[in-house]
């Protein structure tokens, strides 16, 4: 093997060159964008929480301007407000209200898990990634299970408060 000249920058192999977006491999197209989120493949449960987090977040952000507009009806006086509340008691809108509540509960409790991860509380000490991964098994997975159990309880109580009661 010929000696390398230290003054010359090593050449990056062609396969490692960044690929322009337009020339991305066709086989990746099913794993990117919306289809990429929905395809969890053999990923663990947290991957499904990630998909649900995005769906619930998008639902909540779409609902927010509508909520501001509906609650602004109170500016038109008590009669209009009572009419608005009567409209909101339509069964389809009650189901919608429950879905918003469920989305908020899930998004908030899963968000606690994500915040803990982002702030480093559930990452453990740096180490070699040896399977089965102890931090994921003993710290991250139990936290996810506890938070999702709490979410299930709050959603069940919400179902009773909004629809049954």
């Amino acid at each position, binding site marked *: 093997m010929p000696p390398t000249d230290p003054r010359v920058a090593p050449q990056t192999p062609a396969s490692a060159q960044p690929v322009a977006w337009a020339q991305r491999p066709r086989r990746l197209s099913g794993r990117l964008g919306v289809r990429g989120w929905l395809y969890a493949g053999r990923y663990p449960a947290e991957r499904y929480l990630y998909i649900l987090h*995005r769906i619930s*977040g998008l639902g909540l952000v779409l609902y*927010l*301007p509508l909520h501001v507009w509906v609650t602004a009806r*109170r500016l038109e006086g008590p009669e209009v407000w009572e009419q608005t509340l009567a409209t909101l008691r339509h069964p389809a809108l009650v189901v919608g209200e429950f879905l918003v509540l469920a989305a908020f*509960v899930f998004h908030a409790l899963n968000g606690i898990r994500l*915040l803990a991860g982002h702030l480093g509380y559930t990452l453990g000490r740096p180490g070699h990634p040896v399977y089965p991964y102890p931090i994921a098994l003993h710290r991250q997975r139990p936290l996810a299970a506890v938070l999702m159990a709490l979410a299930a309880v709050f959603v069940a109580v*919400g179902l009773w408060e909004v629809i049954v009661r």
Partner: protein
Amino acid sequence: MRESRLWALHLIAAAALLALGGLHMALMHYPALLGALGRPSEPVLAFAAVAARDRAALWRGLYVLLLGFALYHGLYGTRGILREVWPSPRAARAIDVGVVLVGLLVFVYGVTVIALAGMPW
């Protein structure tokens, strides 16, 4: 603003929403649960109760904070998702401008409603 700072604000807004959004949801949607925990049950959506909250400066302040944090957190998340779907630089700029405009529009409208609802007439 640097992307890391926008991201940090997203996390701060998330933490604030856990408190403010949790309070809002608990008061508006879990009256029986709160009653079981000792809070006197009252019709929170009756016009008199809504108007009383509107006249209280503390509630108006909380509403403005809740709206601001919710819009920032939600639209920053939406921006990230949209930029994944349309990753070209031109689309990214259009998405940035779009979310800022939508955020400002809804925030100004919401704050106007809160201010008008708190007027003494």
